[in-house]
């Protein structure tokens, strides 16, 4: 996947917090059942206002596939690697389960998978992407909150969305250079 840089653009205004992405991810990636085990999630933001003038937003998230990933920097066995297309991977065989990466990740995007005895997290469903498909969360989303693609391709939908709309990334001050872009 040379010359590609994968990213996800999210339009959270479309999110209805239905959790389809969460279940799709668990099924696709054999994430063990359990509330502490997840590769992606939807945050219910704090209720705004007071009754009866209320508002609420929902923010889906997952591994940010940072260009400067702190998880990789702290790993003592170099089990976390970044592929040329920007996807951050954990090589399960190299992981010794020390969980430094879990602590280092500012997005809390990693969990320890007891079944494979390694830290696990979102891979942008690279096995599906390399086979010509879409990440499970992107494909299944009822209201199409997420768009996945190559930001190095100026004609991709992600590039067009980022050109057309202002966007933000989470915890920009951490300098992690995340690649989940939230339209504002």
């Amino acid at each position, binding site marked *: 996947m040379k010359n590609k840089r994968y990213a996800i653009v999210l339009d959270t*205004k*479309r999110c*209805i*917090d*239905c*959790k*389809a992405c*969460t*279940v*799709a991810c*668990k*099924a*696709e990636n054999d994430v063990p*059942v*359990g*509330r502490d085990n997840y590769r992606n999630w939807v945050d219910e933001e704090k*209720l705004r206002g*007071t*009754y*009866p003038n*209320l*508002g*609420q*937003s*929902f923010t889906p998230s997952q591994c940010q596939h940072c260009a400067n990933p702190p998880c990789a920097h702290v790993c003592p066995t170099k089990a976390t690697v970044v592929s040329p297309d920007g996807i951050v991977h954990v090589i399960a065989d190299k992981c010794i389960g020390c969980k430094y990466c879990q602590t280092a990740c500012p997005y809390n995007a990693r969990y320890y998978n007891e079944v494979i005895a390694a830290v696990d997290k979102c891979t942008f469903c690279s096995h599906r992407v390399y086979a010509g498909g879409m990440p*499970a969360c992107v*494909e*299944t*989303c*009822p*209201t*199409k909150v997420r768009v996945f693609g190559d930001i190095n391709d100026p004609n991709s939908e992600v590039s067009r969305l980022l050109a057309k709309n202002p966007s933000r990334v989470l915890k920009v001050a951490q300098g992690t250079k995340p690649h989940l872009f939230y339209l504002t």
Partner: protein
Amino acid sequence: MTRLLEKKLSRRRFIGVSSCALAGVAVGSQVKVLRALAQEGKVGAVTTLPTKDVFTSCGMCVNKCGVIARVRDGVIHKLDPNPNFAVKSRAMLCARGNAGTKVVYDPDRLKYPLIRVGERGEGKWRRASWDEALDLVGKNLNQIAEKYTRAGVVFASTEGTFQDHFFNQMAECYGSPNTLRHATLCLSSNIQGFSATFGTNPTPDVLNADYIIMSGANRSEAFITPDTIDLLKGDGGMRKLIYLDPRFTKTAAKADEWYPIKPGTDMAFILAMINVIVTEKRYNKDFVEKMTVGFDKLVPHIATYTPEWAAKECEIPAADIRRIARDFADAAPHAVYYQGRRSSFFANDTQMRRAMAILNAIIGNWDVEGGMIPNRSIAMTKHDYLAPYYDDIPGRLDADSVAYLSESDGSWSIFRDRVLEGKPYPVKGMMIYKQNCVASVPNRAKTLKMMAQMDFICTIDVTMSDTAWYSDVVLPEATYLERLDPPEVLGGIVPVVAWRQPAVEALFESKPCLWIMQQLAKRLGPDIADTFNFTMEEAIEHQCSNNPKILADLKSKGVYYEADKPVYGSSYGKPLKTKSGKIEIYSERYAEKGLDPLPVYSSPNVVPTGKYRLLVGRHAYFTHGTTTNNPYLHDIMPENTLWLHPQEAARLGLDDGRLVRVKSAVGEETLKLEVTEKIRPDSVYMAHGFGVLSKGQSNVYGVGGCDAALIEEKTCMISGNVAMHETLVEIFPA
């Protein structure tokens, strides 16, 4: 009762040539067992099990979205949305759809026929062979027919499994008029109110509407395809969503305006909108003149229903009602008052639905883009059979109980009362197909009492529901991912045909409904058995015989449709299915039956201080009570809570998260309190599907509270629908 067999079913071989292969499934299923055996060297390595993609339909809720089952080495690994199904589902699969693999590989699923050995509800079972279990069911059905009449067995069925038709065929061929389906726990008042007006219950064209008012429908959580998805098209754009709900739901979070309307007063809001539109002459005069009857009677009828009057009832400011009415009329005909689906709220619900229908009618949104569209269908050949004739069978037990009773649905609450009275005749047997009446019919204690007086109860299900738990014989059905099902037309603005083919072979000893009915029929006599003398393949071929493209498309694309866009205006120039052939603002039929011919408002029961109105509602993860035990969905929401406004929590001195006892006139439940501003101070809310009695639902047994245990069963006397929001409760520390 007798139907003519139009055409003997063809005996030709069903030829399965498909990109989604049916061949090879015989090998694969209990793969984990096989793998374990392989590891122990008892069988060869499991390399021959199929890896394939199978087009099928989701079975987790009413929508039946198109699915591609990704099968790896004989195991369903993942369920993906079928992109060809976009015309209906917008090519999505929700949390429940994705959780379908756990229905198949659920340690809690029913594996073998079970016969009760302890007391009912005690949970003592023994495994039986199919022959023994079916012999017992057959013996009991024959005995009840002998001792009472064939009407002495009630057949309670779910809908939409695509095989429920065979269960209902069994009811008819056995000879019982007593079938009970879900409609009177759901939408029968909606169907009645809209049909009395339009001759049909139309579908709002959400995709093309510019202005939508939604009350009593929580579309961002209670999914209906494609509305749930289409509703968001205008987020930040043209479309406006006005949302009325006593709770701040996910739909409220997406709406342009949310009003926490006082429960039971929607009709006041609607009548006031009609008042504004009529008195300010904002209605579609040409349409009203040509297409409707009774407008002249409506004008004086709504004269006193002013916004100022309504504001006192529904607690929405008069200025807002007036503005919304004007904006709604201005947006016409691309404007809909969205009627939703479930309409079991108050006992006057049918008349409230009439008011909704009339409001839609006067702005002239009938059968035009962005308006209310009569459903279309797709022609298929009917499955037919010659039911035996019995001459000594009485009519339905609940006959003549309400103004318009559906012969096939009945009225659950009224039926139950008559069983308990034993009048006009005894009903002593229950055959249940995947309906969970213990958990879903209001007043659980009364349902259990009704079941206690039955001589025999048999439940067919995939899981040990509360109803199965209180049965004598429990028969395991194959899950929707393990069955070949007949194609089913999903009617709507853009109708489609969906079907199911097995992704894997049925696990354990589970069997499809048709097989169970066929085996049972053999035990009930040759006349009944004859009606089931066909294979599923033959039934499918017969059904598709009028149009071979249907089956070809189902095999190659997983869906069949004739148009991918709405067709508008097809109802014009033809009489509607009403008495006058026009849209009936004033209903002559209602007048003849002594019902209000125009909707008359009555205030809901008063909530005294110290009491709260119990509300029910949906979450996007649960389909009624059927999916709370699913491991993936249980992860999202492991228990239910009682929502209470902070002001009332403070008054009662109750903290968030503490256990509370909730008490109504018919029951008491204990669950955790959730203090939240997302609800009116006079109401409380709890999710359905918890407080389960069955130990066969290991994740949710005894967890949280059961709403059906608390709700009183007031009933709409026009449609027979129960009213789920008439119950008041008290809250105590537990």
